């Protein structure tokens, strides 16, 4: 089935599905205003998971910032309902793979390496299929990296 999934993903590549808050833009946040990724995606450098910011994190700024903008108003509604925002998943690794953001970020891999030039995108696109080929290519290239040598051991990701 794996390959079937690949095909599907190839199709998805470069597409940006509609999001619950269409006005939200990484370009504005990460690009124009140079907000570091880790500011919102807390824990990406110390946990396998790059956390999707909690609604409270957004409200941290948007209590005050741009409260008149439609997107922020939608956000505020979610906040008032104390409800999670059902963001649509764009970057998705195959099942049964244990990817860890922590190791990659601590090794100094830029987020853009896998997520594309996100700071220029209004809507998050699937920059790479994130299939095994994608991972292996990079790992092979850095096998003998002096500081952060990678590994091609299957157990690195498959557990």
């Amino acid at each position, binding site marked *: *089935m794996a390959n079937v999934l690949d095909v599907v993903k190839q199709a998805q590549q470069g597409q940006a599905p509609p999001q619950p808050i269409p006005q939200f833009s990484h370009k504005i946040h990460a690009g124009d205003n140079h907000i570091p990724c880790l500011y919102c995606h807390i824990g990406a450098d110390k946990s396998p998971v790059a956390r999707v910011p909690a609604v409270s994190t957004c409200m941290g700024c948007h209590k005050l910032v741009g409260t008149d903008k439609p997107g922020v108003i939608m956000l505020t509604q979610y906040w008032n309902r104390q409800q999670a925002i059902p963001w649509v998943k764009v970057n998705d690794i195959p099942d049964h793979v244990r990817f860890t953001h922590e190791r990659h970020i601590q090794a100094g891999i830029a987020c853009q390496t896998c997520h594309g030039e996100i700071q220029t995108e209004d809507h998050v696109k699937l920059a790479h299929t994130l*299939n*095994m*080929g994608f991972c*292996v290519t990079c790992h*092979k290239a850095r096998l003998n990296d002096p500081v952060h040598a990678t590994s091609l051991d299957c157990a690195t990701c498959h557990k």
Partner: protein
Amino acid sequence: MEAMKGLTYRKINEDIASIGHRVGKAWLVVFGLDLLVLTFGICCWFYQLFKGLGVTGYTRPAMWAVYITNFVFWVGIAHSGTLISAILFLFRAGWRQAIYRVSEAMTVFAVMTAGLFPLIHLGRIWFFYWLIPYPNQRQIWVNFRSPLVWDVFAVSTYFTVSAIFFVVGMIPDIAAMRDRETGLRKKLYSLLALGWRGTSRNWKHYAQTYIYFAAFATPLVLSVHSVVSWDFAMAQNPGWHSTIFAPYFVAGAIFSGMALVVTLIVPIRKAFKLEQYITDWHFDAMAKLILFTGNIVTYSYLVEFFMAWYSGNPYERQAFWDRAFGPMGWAFWVMAACNCIIPQLLWKRRNRTHIPTLFVITLFVNVGMWYERFVIIVQSLNANFSPWIWRGGYKPTFVEWGITAGSFAWFFMYFLLFVRFLPTFSITELKEILPRPFRRSRKEKAA
């Protein structure tokens, strides 16, 4: 050669090429029943596919059982075909000419059946293509150390070669049928005949090609089943890990193959009144070969037991003690009776040429050879290294039986079609063995 009195080229053409028309209603009935069984087998397989292999009787330690048994059985069957058509051809054994077409067909169809089982037996058949080395974005390869990968190559090669050999060998005969037919059939035969005109150039090339393929196929007869035997010999299980497996399996293969040839030819001969073509002489020769290979097999059994005892290896000793006297010892005794004792009847010429007797004996051999594989696989696995895992044995469920029956139906489906639509016997070569004076009848001379 008395039996062949009165035969002429024309008569041979008549008799052989007309078989397809002489089948009649009986054929339809048999074919229908066959399809019924096949359907049942397919249903069982789908059931297994959706529920998981758990619907079979498989368990630890019997992780392999009936399916692999069938695989080895059918691969074995596949051997005699090429043996008869290739090796005996090179050795110029006259008696092969009457029967080689049937056994070649059998070969091709048997391989087609055998090929199913490694797949049916997979836990995740939808990934079967991972066993084939192909470049992929994952940058992962197959494990060339694994005998299963060798199987993939061995079996596919064998199938390709024997199929081509089969088709090439039929060209002149198909041409002959083409000339007698009309309508759609004629078109089809014309296609298969590849424009054969029977010119001497045609014949020259044909003969060369045929010899070439015979030479090419000969080593395969030995290699394929050796490779299959290594599935077991390469593993360290007591009862498997043995150096005699390759020759032992090849002999067994020819043994079972020959037996099935007889089993198939006897009814055809009766149904289509071909007593003139397939004579006691042929059966006698085949019976001798069965007796010979049967004794090789028997000898191998004895060697296995002797080595188990002589090596002093406690695991081997235990395994072979269990094989004969363990919880599933009965299977061993069925095998021994069918493969070692019953064939000894063939020492008597009377039994070799008395068709019903011979027929029954070959049936026993077929059963026996199936059980040989079953014993080797299941019994050895049950007598594995870890005493904690020893378990009473293994009980197949209706799924295994259903799929096994289905595989026979699958084989016979092709064979019935073959009898119906293709020259069941080699017209060409039958003509070759006619004694000279009979090559043309007086009438024709006069005319």
